[in-house]
C-alpha cells in the first residue's frame, strides 16, 4: 500500500515539478522566441508560436550597440571583481574561521551591516570622487566598486565554508610540523576548493547582473551589457523583436554559464545556514 501511495506522490511531484519549471522559464523562452521574429510577428495578435525565424534583429542590434565590446566588458568586470574580492576575502575568512577571537563575531556582523548600506546613499559622493579622479566611465572604477559591493557576501560565504573544515585536521598537520604554506597547499586549498568555486560562481553572477552602479558611473566606453540593454531599451523601446534580441544576447552568456555550473551553485548556496 505504501508503495502505491509513494508512486502517486511521485506522479504528483513530477507533474507539479514540470508545470512550475515551465512557467518559471516561460518568460525567458518567450523572449528568446521573439528575438527571432520579425517586428510584425512579435506584435501579432494572437501571439505566434510558429513563424519563419530571422537573424536580422541580431545583426541590427550589433550595429546599434557594439555587442562584443560590452560583452567583453561584462566578462572583464565580473571575472576581475570576483577574483579580487576572493583574494581580499579569503585571508580574512580564514583567520576568522580558524582563529576566532572575541571580536570575530562583531567583525562579521559589521561586514554584513556594510552590505546593508544602500548604494544610493553612497552614489553622490562616489560619483563626485570619480569625477574628481577622472575615473568616470572606466573599467577599473566599475571593477573596484563591484568588488566592494560583493565583498561582504563573499567574506561571509567563504567564512561559512571554512568553518566546515574540521580544525583538527589542521591541528594534526601542525603537530606533524607542517608549515603554514604546506598546510595551505595540501590541506586548505583542496578542502575548500569546492566552497571557493561556489562563492566565485555566485559572485560572478551577481557582478554580471549588477545594474545600479553600471548605469550611474559608466557610459559607452566601459559599460557592461547591463548598461547596453538599458540604453537600448530607452532608444528602441517600441521595437520588441530587436529589444528581445538584445536582451537574450545579454543574458545568454551568464545563463549558459549558470546552467552548466548549477550543481556547484546549488551546493554552495547555504551561507552557513545548514549545520
Amino acid at each position, binding site marked *: 500500500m505504501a508503495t502505491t501511495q509513494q508512486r502517486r506522490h511521485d506522479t504528483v511531484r513530477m507533474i507539479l515539478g514540470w508545470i512550475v519549471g515551465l512557467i518559471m522559464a516561460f518568460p525567458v523562452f518567450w523572449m528568446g522566441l521573439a528575438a527571432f521574429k520579425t517586428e510584425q510577428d512579435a506584435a501579432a*495578435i494572437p501571439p505566434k508560436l510558429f513563424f519563419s525565424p530571422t537573424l536580422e534583429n541580431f545583426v541590427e542590434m550589433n550595429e546599434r550597440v557594439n555587442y562584443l565590446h560590452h560583452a567583453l566588458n561584462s566578462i572583464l568586470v565580473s571575472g576581475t571583481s570576483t577574483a579580487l574580492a576572493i583574494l*581580499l576575502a579569503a585571508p580574512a575568512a580564514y583567520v576568522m574561521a580558524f582563529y576566532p577571537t572575541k571580536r570575530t563575531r562583531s567583525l562579521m556582523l559589521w561586514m554584513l551591516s556594510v552590505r546593508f548600506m544602500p548604494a*544610493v546613499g553612497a552614489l553622490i559622493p562616489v560619483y563626485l570622487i570619480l569625477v574628481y579622479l577622472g575615473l568616470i566611465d572606466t573599467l577599473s572604477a566599475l571593477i573596484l566598486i563591484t568588488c566592494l559591493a560583493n565583498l561582504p557576501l563573499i567574506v561571509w560565504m567563504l567564512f561559512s565554508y571554512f568553518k566546515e573544515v574540521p580544525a583538527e585536521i589542521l591541528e594534526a598537520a601542525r603537530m606533524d610540523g607542517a608549515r603554514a604554506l604546506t598546510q595551505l597547499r595540501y590541506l586548505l586549498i583542496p578542502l575548500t576548493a569546492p566552497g571557493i568555486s561556489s562563492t566565485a560562481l555566485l559572485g560572478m553572477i551577481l557582478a554580471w*547582473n549588477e*545594474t545600479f552602479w553600471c548605469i550611474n558611473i559608466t557610459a559607452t566606453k566601459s559599460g557592461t551589457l*547591463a548598461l547596453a*540593454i538599458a540604453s537600448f531599451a530607452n532608444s528602441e523601446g517600441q521595437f*520588441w523583436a530587436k529589444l528581445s534580441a538584445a536582451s537574450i544576447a*545579454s543574458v545568454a552568456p551568464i545563463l549558459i554559464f549558470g546552467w552548466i555550473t548549477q550543481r556547484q551553485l546549488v551546493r554552495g548556496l547555504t551561507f552557513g*545556514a545548514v549545520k
Partner: protein
Amino acid sequence: MASTTTPITVPARARSRRVMKTWPLLLPSVAVLALWAFVPLVLTLWYSFQNYNLQMPPAVFGGLINYEYLLTDPDLPGVVFNTLIMVFVPLIVTVVLGTAFAVIYDGPFPGQPIARILVITPFFVMPTVAALVWKNLFFHPVWGLFSWLQQSLGMQPIDWFSSHPMTAIIIIISWAWTPFATLILLTAMQSLDREQIEAARMDGAKSIARFYYVVLPHLYRPIAVLVMLETVFFLSTYAEIYVTTMGGPGSATTNIPFYIYSRALMGFDVGLASAAGVFAIIIANIVAFFFVRIMSEQI
C-alpha cells in the same frame, strides 16, 4: 591529556603572538570595507548640509534646509511606504513559493534535473532584462500576452503599469528572486536527515504533519538567512523601476533609491539627494538592526 598542560599564564603571550600573526590577513578586507563604508557616508552627511545644485555651483552651507525640504515633501511618506511594500511583499511571495518549490524538487522524478534548471533560470536574468520582458511581452495593454489571454476570455485587458503599477513591479521582482529562495531552501532541505522523516512516517505522521513538524523547523535558519539577504537586495530595487515606470504614475512606484536617483541625477540637486541618502541609510540601519540580531545567533 594534553589539555592538562594549559597553565593560565601562557595564553597572554600566546594570544599576543596570535594577534600579531592574524591581523595582516584581516587588514586588507577590513580596511577597504571601512573606507567603502565611511568615506561616502561622511561625504553624504557633509553634502546633505550644503545648498549644492550642480547647475548652480558653488556649494554654500545651507544648514538643515535640505532636511526641511525632504521631510516636508508630500511625496515622502508614499515613497517610504512604497519601499517597504517592495521589500515585504516579494519577501513573503518568494519565501512561500520557494518553500513550496523546494518541497516539489526535493525528490526524484523523471526529468527532475532539467525541470530544476528551468526553475532557477530567472536567477541568471539581469534585472533590466527581466523588467523589459515582462513590460513588453506580458504586461503591454495591447500586444502583451496577458492582454491577449484576457481578451480571449472575454475580459477587458488591463493596462498594468497605469492601473496596477506596484503589482506589476512586485510580480517582476518575485519572479526574478523565487529561484534564489528555491535554491537555498532546496539545499537546506537536502541536508535534512532522511531518517528523521522516515521515523516520523513510521510513527504515523501524515505528509502534512511531517512537513510541519520535521521539515519546517529545519528550515527556520535558512529562511532567516534568506530573508536577510533578500532584504538587502530588495531595499535597493532600482533597475526594475528604471526600465518600467520611471517611478510613476505620479510617484506610485517611486522607492527611496529611485527618489534619490530622480532628485540627484535628474534634478542635479546634490544637497537634497544627499539628505535623502542619509535618510535611506537610516531606514536601512533600522531594518539591518533587526536582521543583524537574528544573524548574530546564526554565527
